[in-house]
């Protein structure tokens, strides 16, 4: 099978060339949740095909590295049975209320809902989100495009952060809101961003250009 055909079969970004005829294949792991079975399947693929191993990314995903072109098809087929789709706008989450002693809100459940919510949008640029279950903010919500931080009173909604080139601390859009209110605010902010941002302009740059007041006005519009 031709390389193009294999690439078309998988979600965009799932296979990335890394030069020298080698490729990275992303493994879908929602919010870093993996299991002994998944590791087992990955282990079998790596051992059977003699691959060089995996890399755990800081975005809580795993990738099979240095996959030669002639083994891509088999890797993709075998992975397809253990992992589903890759989401359009990935959401990261801290360990959450099930695992962490400090959690006050259910970050992983909220992250799942947020990822589904974001799927309905077509945005000008990539968008990264982080959900944290307490104010320690292990989901790094303050340096994501969309951030949620759980407090005793509800969610703090953050927008316009960035952890990469041109790092920026996010602005706070609301505090102490419910799940539904948080989605309403995020929706309004994203609509405003979608309508007014330049192509490929990340939310951090957009925020710097238009200012917090303009965004707040759009969010408060009923």
């Amino acid at each position: 099978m031709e390389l193009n055909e294999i690439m078309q079969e998988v979600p965009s970004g799932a296979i990335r060339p890394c030069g020298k005829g080698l490729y990275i294949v992303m493994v879908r792991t929602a919010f870093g949740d993996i299991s002994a079975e998944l590791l087992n399947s990955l282990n079998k693929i790596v051992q059977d095909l003699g691959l060089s191993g995996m890399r755990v990314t800081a975005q809580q995903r795993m990738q099979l590295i240095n996959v030669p072109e002639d083994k891509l098809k088999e890797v993709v087929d075998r992975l397809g049975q253990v992992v589903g789709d890759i989401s359009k706008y990935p959401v990261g989450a801290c360990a959450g209320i099930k695992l962490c002693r400090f959690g006050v809100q259910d970050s992983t459940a909220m992250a799942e809902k947020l990822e589904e919510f974001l799927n309905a949008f077509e945005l000008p640029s990539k968008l990264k989100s982080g959900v944290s279950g307490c104010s320690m903010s292990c989901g790094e919500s303050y340096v994501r495009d969309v951030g949620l931080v759980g407090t005793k009173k509800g969610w703090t909604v953050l927008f316009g952060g960035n952890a990469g080139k041109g790092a920026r601390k996010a602005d706070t859009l609301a505090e102490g809101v419910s799940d539904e209110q948080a989605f309403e605010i995020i929706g309004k902010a994203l609509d405003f961003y979608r309508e007014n941002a330049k192509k490929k302009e990340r939310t951090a740059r957009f925020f710097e250009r238009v200012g917090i007041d303009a965004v707040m006005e759009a969010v408060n519009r009923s």
Partner: protein
Amino acid sequence: MGEKDAPKGAILQRDKKTYAIVPRTPVGLVTPDVLEALARVGRKFEIPIMKITSGQRIALVGLEEEQVDQVWEDLKMDIGPAVGLCVHYVQACPGTEVCKFGLRDSLGLGLELEEMFVGKQLPAKMKVGVSGCTMCCAESYVRDVGLIGKRKGWTMVVGGNASGRPRIADVLAEDLTRSEAIELVGRFMNYYNENSNKRSRSSMLLKKVGIDAVKAAIL
């Protein structure tokens, strides 16, 4: 926080009964042998939860107290520090090894720093991020120590933080060679050790003294 009575390298969980452990996987690389070991203990001990952390590690969660030593024994891996006042991890993007945009070998430098500094005792925990180009995928500007690969050399930034009290790191030096960068990381850690209060992260120190004071002291 109850950590004192916990078994080797284990973190007490929310239920106050079970523990999590985090094996050391420097810069997120999982070799076939390590993958095999993790898959094996997962099966054998029926580990209920495994989770990828944002420190590029795999946490094994829900172990009974008496299982902790057995799992370490079986894994034959080192502990990745996840609590305690020391260097926790060095994170790195794929760099020139794996990424087509990479300008410098972030995995190589990350591994070398990991080897030298992980576990080093400091006033508070420390996180390090090494990025192979200015896209900064290892989030170097929001780590205690960040390195960014540019055409002319490494840029070193310090005092960043990505969590509850976020802070964008300050630029300490530019155009460093690999060995200069490693030396400067060591010098910064010593400065931090001597000048910071206990449990005060590097971002708090930078906020207090300012980057010029750090430059004057160690450059």
